[in-house]
């Protein structure tokens, strides 16, 4: 039903902010001459209550159906005037602003030129206003549950947060145990290991009926939109059930022997194994990827805890939001990088952490290659900060603190062992600075390199580190018994599996990208999918925990009202014109568009709850069938044409 536009134009003086430069009276008189303008007024402060009442009264008394306010920037008062318009019974999207303050009176000194420009801007706003259409804010109900992908420290924190506030949580972890990297390595401070934090958090998870833990599980499908996701997970068989009492007899007879990823390759394990002492679920598991199903373990198990016929199963979960907290991988030095792979005394920081862990393969004894080293050197920034050709460009954030904590502990436990830290810069930020001082007090020797990374030399006399020391400006050679490469953090090698299912995207450094570092931290660009922990980049344990809380808070905010409100200025398909050419589908960064068959025709379909209103599809649509509500082609064209009178 076409109704003739009846436009009211209101020109704000903004005190003297506008009126001192722009001749507001002249502009109001000009506005009256524009077609479809029924009334044009000027007033000292349009955003004030009397100002807003001018609009409301005119809507009621003059039957206005469009309103234009020429004043400050819409970023200031668009919501104010929209509310005013709505309260007078007019759809709030039948309102347009002309920015004659920030874009005019404040930046142009010449009264005549500023006034002429103000007239142009108002004419453009009126041209668009003529073509505005009422828009709805659609609501969708939500599921009050969240799927947390990743059972590491940030995922666990997020799960606890969510459960605390009444949301059901599905905690889905790919490996057979919760805990992630922090259960194995890392420190919160000199006294507290990551594993202690993990253990405490796992206790809380155990007791929480709202948190449903799925280990040995993967997310294989994600359909739907924010608030209304249908997720599918696949639970791989453990083959071992809770009857297991961890006696370990099965382990003795298992013929399969592989490198133990829980010790970062320092030790070996069998196909049937217990990941680590604090693992949850707290019993053995069979690695379904390497098990030969020989049945030896079943034979010796006295508790009937093993069933090799267990099949993978798939579960459908209805969730309102997803939190991706899948963590990171340790950088793997190339063979030969700092001579890694050519000598058993050259290990990584992650491996050292396992050695120093009282629960680790050597019960906390610093035994490398059978002996306690008399001297040990850490080389920092391995795999980070462009030190070597294969290194990443960023700083991995936690390696300096971890290396220094380890150095302090070694000096404490083995006072006769010399410890060197060979660094480019020491990045112990915040309160970790005190660790740096403590290390110095304990006679850890800090040796600096600059451009050239140190060289690890393997000779019949032993290991040496050759470098150009920057502070004394001399080439030096340090003989050492063992070398620890402080390797950094890289994105998980299997991250593509997550990306494929959730369609989130990577940033420049390969980690997952947050929607906007400043405006939307902990959010992925997809509405309803949040990010926590090291999946977005290197962090220490506390930072990961905080981000887990942040992501949980964001998920709760999304779901808290019981409904989601879709963005109204979204893409819209004219089905009479759409030919299903599908150009739009690949253009949408939110995967909001798909091709559906309507009466036998291919037609583009916009998932309204997913569309964020960028308009890229509208500009790409070759037939003009796709338009953006509120920014339609004809509305923008009208502004272009009106710019010239």
């Amino acid at each position, binding site marked *: 039903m076409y109704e003739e536009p009846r436009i009211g134009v209101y020109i704000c003086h903004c005190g003297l902010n506008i009126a001192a430069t722009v001749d507001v009276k002249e502009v109001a008189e000009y506005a009256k001459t524009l077609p479809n303008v029924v009334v044009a007024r000027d007033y000292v402060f349009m955003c004030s209550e009397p100002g807003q009442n001018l609009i409301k009264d005119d809507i009621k008394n003059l039957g206005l159906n469009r309103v234009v306010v020429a004043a400050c920037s819409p970023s200031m008062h668009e919501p104010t005037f929209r509310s005013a318009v709505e309260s007078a019974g007019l759809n709030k999207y039948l309102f347009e602003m002309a920015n004659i303050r920030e874009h005019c009176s404040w*930046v*142009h000194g010449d009264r005549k030129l500023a006034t002429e420009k103000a007239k*142009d801007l108002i004419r453009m706003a009126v041209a668009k206003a003529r073509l505005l259409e009422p828009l709805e804010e659609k609501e969708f109900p939500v599921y009050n549950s969240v799927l947390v992908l990743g059972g590491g420290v940030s995922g666990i924190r997020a799960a606890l947060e969510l459960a605390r506030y009444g949301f059901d949580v599905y905690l889905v972890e790919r490996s057979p145990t919760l805990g992630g990297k922090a259960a194995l390595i890392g420190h919160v401070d000199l006294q507290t290991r990551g594993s202690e934090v993990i253990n405490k958090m796992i206790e809380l998870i155990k007791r929480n009926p709202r948190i449903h833990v799925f280990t040995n599980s993967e997310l294989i499908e994600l359909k739907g939109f924010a608030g209304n996701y249908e997720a599918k997970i696949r639970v791989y068989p453990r083959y071992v059930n809770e009857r297991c009492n961890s006696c370990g007899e099965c382990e003795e007879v298992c013929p399969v022997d592989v490198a133990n990823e829980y010790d970062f390759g320092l030790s070996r394990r069998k196909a049937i194994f217990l990941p680590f002492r604090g693992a949850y679920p707290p019993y053995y598991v069979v690695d379904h990827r390497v098990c030969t199903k020989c049945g030896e373990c079943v034979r010796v198990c006295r508790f009937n805890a093993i069933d090799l016929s267990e099949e993978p199963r798939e579960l459908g979960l209805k969730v309102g939001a997803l939190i991706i907290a899948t963590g990171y991988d340790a950088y793997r030095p190339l063979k030969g990088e700092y001579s890694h792979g050519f000598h058993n005394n050259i290990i990584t920081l992650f491996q050292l952490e396992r050695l120093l862990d009282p629960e680790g393969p050597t019960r906390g004894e610093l035994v490398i290659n059978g002996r306690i080293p008399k001297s040990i050197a850490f080389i920092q920034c391995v795999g980070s900060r462009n030190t070597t050709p294969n290194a990443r460009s960023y700083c991995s954030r936690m390696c300096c603190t971890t290396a220094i904590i380890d150095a302090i502990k070694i000096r404490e436990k083995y006072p006769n062992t010399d410890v060197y830290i060979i660094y480019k810069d020491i990045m112990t930020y915040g309160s970790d600075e005190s660790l740096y001082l403590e290390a110095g007090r304990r006679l850890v020797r800090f040796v600096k390199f600059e451009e050239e990374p140190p060289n690890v030399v393997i000779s019949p006399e032993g290991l040496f580190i050759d470098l150009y020391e920057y502070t004394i400006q001399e080439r030096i050679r340090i003989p050492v018994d063992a070398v620890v490469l402080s390797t950094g953090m890289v994105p998980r090698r299997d991250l593509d599996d997550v990306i494929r299912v959730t369609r989130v995207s990577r940033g420049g450094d390969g980690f997952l990208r947050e929607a906007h570092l400043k405006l939307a931290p902990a959010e992925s660009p997809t509405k309803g999918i949040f990010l926590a922990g090291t999946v977005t980049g290197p962090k220490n344990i506390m930072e990961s925990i905080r981000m887990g809380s942040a992501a949980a808070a964001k998920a709760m905010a999304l779901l808290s009202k019981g409904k989601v409100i879709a963005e109204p200025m979204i893409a819209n398909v004219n089905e009479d014109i759409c030919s299903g050419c599908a150009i739009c589908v690949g253009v949408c960064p939110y995967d909001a568009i798909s091709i559906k068959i309507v009466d036998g025709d291919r037609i583009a379909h916009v998932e309204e709850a997913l569309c964020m*209103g960028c308009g*890229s599809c509208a500009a790409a649509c070759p037939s003009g069938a796709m338009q953006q509500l509120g920014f339609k*082609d004809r509305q923008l064209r009208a502004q*272009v044409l009106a710019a010239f009178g």
Partner: protein
Amino acid sequence: MSEGFEPKIVVFACNWCTYAAVDLAGTSRIQYPHNVRVIRVMCSGRVDPQFVLEAFNRGADGVIVAGCHPPADCHYSEGNFKAFRRFTLFRRLLDSLGIERERFKLEWISASEAGKWVQVVNEMVNDLKKLGPLREKLEVR
């Protein structure tokens, strides 16, 4: 060039970055030439090359399309990627159609770059004053 020729420039500014930068120039009271008319879009990815051609046809002497810095600033992730792809090709079209390079700019201006906005405007106004009005060249002379 005609004396006192004041070029008319149409600007498509994305809401989250460039429009905010223009606002910031205003709040900072930075004075710059009056010749620009800003049209607000939510994202530079909304800008259809047809609009730019229309602007030139109707009397714009210059057109600017401005959005958020790639690769990471776009509020909608990759809208600016589309603007980049389109207007990189568009330049070639303008070349073939005899429209001087100075008449069209694709710029990345973040919300804090009021100075860059002013610089871009000044540069274009100066260039266009030297080139003269486009309108005259639309007719065969």
